[in-house]
């Protein structure tokens, strides 16, 4: 790890100002950034911690919406977002206890790891990503591997989840990292069904629209029996071929529907 400056502002405005410094980098739970820095693959000159900002923490539920401060840890979501049970279940299964007590929802979404769990929840739920500057629909937020709609220096401050009628997340773990080899988040609302897949896509999280159409007509696992997920654009690596992942997309979606 290279040397760096560390600041921990207490307001969003101060954080935004601090991030204007050259080579400054926002730090939330550090579950990706810290290992990357230790391996000398990242060397920011200033780390701006976002975990000392009170208004970026906590969970508020009202009017069918759960709003979660971006600096809220996975463990806090697992314990406190009971208004959205599928989301608490997902949060309670991220990584291990050490990860869940440090990692945050904002950090996970801003990083947009292609195998992270939260992007599937945000995309399937039709969540709104709230930043210091604007509100971004989940459909517009995720833009490829480790790429999002965030501008330079823009900070996620909160995430708003409309609570679906029915929802569930089913994850098949990669044997080594235990990240999602393929995870499917299914959300049913009055407007229809949304299915978001993480872990499998070469461009990160994506919606399986064929399944959405089928499930919007008949929300049952069996309705997907005749459907095959396309292999195009799926990852092939040590842990599975695109064909295997396409199978998991279907199996995990069916399991999520059954659990919802």
């Amino acid at each position, binding site marked *: 790890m290279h040397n760096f400056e560390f600041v921990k502002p207490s307001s969003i405005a101060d954080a935004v100002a601090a991030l204007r410094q050259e080579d400054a980098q926002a730090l939330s739970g550090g579950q990706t950034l810290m290992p990357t820095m230790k391996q000398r693959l990242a060397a920011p000159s200033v780390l701006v911690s976002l975990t000392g900002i009170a208004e970026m923490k906590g969970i508020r539920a009202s009017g069918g919406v759960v709003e979660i401060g971006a600096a809220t840890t996975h463990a806090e979501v697992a314990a406190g977002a009971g208004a959205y049970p599928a989301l608490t279940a997902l949060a309670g299964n991220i990584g291990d206890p050490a990860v869940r007590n440090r990692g945050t929802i904002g950090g996970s979404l801003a990083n947009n790891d292609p195998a992270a769990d939260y992007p599937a929840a945000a995309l399937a739920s039709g969540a709104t990503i709230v930043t210091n500057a604007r509100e971004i629909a989940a459909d517009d937020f995720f833009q490829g591997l480790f790429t999002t709609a965030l501008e330079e220096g823009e900070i996620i401050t909160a995430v708003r989840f409309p609570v679906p009628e029915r929802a569930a997340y089913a994850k098949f773990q990669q*044997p*080594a990292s235990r990240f999602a080899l393929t995870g499917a988040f299914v959300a049913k609302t009055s407007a229809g069904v949304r299915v978001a897949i993480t872990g499998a896509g070469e461009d990160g999280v994506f919606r399986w629209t064929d399944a959405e159409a089928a499930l919007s007509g008949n929300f049952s696992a069996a309705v997907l029996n005749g459907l095959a997920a396309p292999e195009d654009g799926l990852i092939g690596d040590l842990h599975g071929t695109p064909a295997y992942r396409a199978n998991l997309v279907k199996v995990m979606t069916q399991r999520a529907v059954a659990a919802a």
Partner: protein
Amino acid sequence: MPKDQGIGASSKRREDVRFLTGRGVYTDDLSLHGQTHAVFVRSTVAHGRIKAIDTAAAAAMPGVLAVFTGEDFKDMGGNPAGWLINSRNGEPMREPKRPVLAHGKVRHVGDAYAAVVAETFQQAKDAAQQLADDSDIEELPAIVDMAAALADSSNRVHDEIPDNQCFDWGWIEDNRAAVDAAIKAAPHVTTLELVNNRLVPNAMEPRASIGEYFPGTGDYKLTTTSQNPHLHRLLIAAFVMGMPENKLTVVAPDVGGGFGSKIYHYGEEAVVLAAAKKLARPVRWTAERSESFLSDAHGRDHVTKIELACEKDGTFIAFRTETMANVGAYLSNFSTATPTFLHGTLMAGPYKVPNVYVNVKTVFTNTAPVDAYRGAGRPEATFSLERVIDKMCRELGLDPFEVRRKNLLTKDMFPYTTPVGLAYDTGDYHATLDKAMAMADVAGFEARRAESAKKGKLRGMGLSTWIEACGIAPSNLVGVLGSRVGLYDAATVRVNATGNISVMTGAHSHGQGHETVFAQIVAEKLGVPEASVEIVHGDTSKIPFGMGSYGSRSLAVCGSAMNRAVDKIIAKGKKIAAHMLEAAEDDITFENGNFSVAGTDKAKSFGEIAFSAYVPHNYPLETLEPGLEETAFYDPANFTYPAGAYICEVEVDPDTGKVDVAAFYCADDFGNVMNPMIVEGQVHGGVGQGIGQALCENTSYDESGQLLSGSYMDYAMPRADDVPFYNVDYSCQTPCTHNPLGVKGCGEAGAIGSPPAVVNAVIDALHRGGHTHVTHIDMPVSPSRVWSAING
């Protein structure tokens, strides 16, 4: 009622108090005055020619004290292979020099070719990066696939070895014609091609070394992660650096696991010693985990074709194997013994089989060196045999339990000489098979399978009847077989003046629990409390000599040396007692810690004898020396032969291919058991590693020789939820006939016997589930491989 101390008691592991409370002292925990930090520059290409390394910029960086390249060490000796193997045609193996730092060429990703020593770790790290940037290395085509390496003489790992072959070994060559004829004439032959997957050892503590040099005396000291400090001293002093052994002390303090990988001498150790001399300051290095993945000696990596010839009723007629064994880029110290004498000699298994022939070609590739890893050769032999037997049973519609029962050696056949050169001294393989079947409730399997089916899961049961040769090793025999060392061991038992005891053993405990078990044995024999016995190991300046711990040898060999030294203590005690009690030495008996004159009530306690030995007032000094300390060396007459039967039950999810180990049963014969709790722990750990090999661990190099599974993000270690609750039994005991404790060794058993039981269970589950086209899946039997096999 169970004993509460001594032989056979489940004494709690005394060393765990410090390990579990963070008070262990590992190499990296030491902080020395004036210490400096070494960082190694490692090749990022699998194969390359070093054109130039410009050290100027790195040497001028802040805090940098010294920069080394292969050029600085080119006149030093090579790190040798410990065994000389001859090819079938009589030619000796090709043994390329293994330099301290790569010189001329780099031969695998992670091959260290330069080093920086600086005041701080960060400064050394910065300069190492600079040195890497300033190195001109011409990348050459990588040699990764073994068959291709043998076929293409235009591309060579070592320029002087045209076909990349180290040797082509036949065992036993005289058997070959008879085996070929037997297979040709046999009513049935089953053939199986399989891979025994390469494993990264993954000791919890990475390798670490501290070199010191004392200019006043010219002495060196190496503190390092070693399973055998004397072997390190011998290799460094006599072979690599060229110094008298009495100028080098090697200390291996607490060591956090080895599994074989810390048997060997590595170049980093010579570099920190040479750097310490140059700077006259301590030089330390601790591997980062990614360095461990790239540069620790890996395990296994065989590609094998095995043929089993049999009668239609499953009676074995012959086994024949052709194996390519990867030795990686250089010969690590035991790399030539592992695929040969620790593998080919076991290829008769525990079976009555008249004809066995083994062929092994060892191949150099641009990958990390491969050497002994828990089990070392014996897991490879067991896996090949137990998998091909299972395949044969399926082909002929025979019951795998009954086929084993029919072919296992019977207990009246011992001692038994196999067609591959070993003499099994004792065993009762039917007893362990019966025990395992009873434990596993084989009769109730169908009901369990039906329950699994209700959940959509395929259930299967797999068996492995395994044997190993351990208690390594009789020096006379291994000398004939090409070993450059003897494999005896030594112990000193020092009774201190106040009656407490220090035992210096050549074994090295890096997690096994020697400090507890050895104290139990000495306490039992001397009739003293365990707490008064202290076990000292891991320091060449304190221990008489020793070959260390591996090959399940510590108890059978080092324990026997200790036992012999204790016998000498008792004999000396009798002399002292005879003097003190004014009796003839022959009339003194020793029992329960008391020396007595037979037939009288005259007696002296062990403590009184010890005190008298060190306060020898009124001693007949002409005939009786003061002191009570004895050293013994012990060289075993034979290997020991633990054996057993393992049964695994799995549930397979056909939708995802995921395998869950539902149950695992071990019935082992380890001979006499010194501490049941520690035996159980060893079996648990071994089976855990075996399940890891069978289901999880995948060391994968791509075509360019890059290690794809170079971190825990991609290298799957078995986790708690990958392993079941183990059921372990060791009540079938046929004590070893040739060592005084009657012990056989239990350290490697689990890793040897378990992988085929797991894979056999998976194949069984798929067949019972109707997927009868699947005859084999290579390890690791990962979800994607199982799913692909089902849907292939």
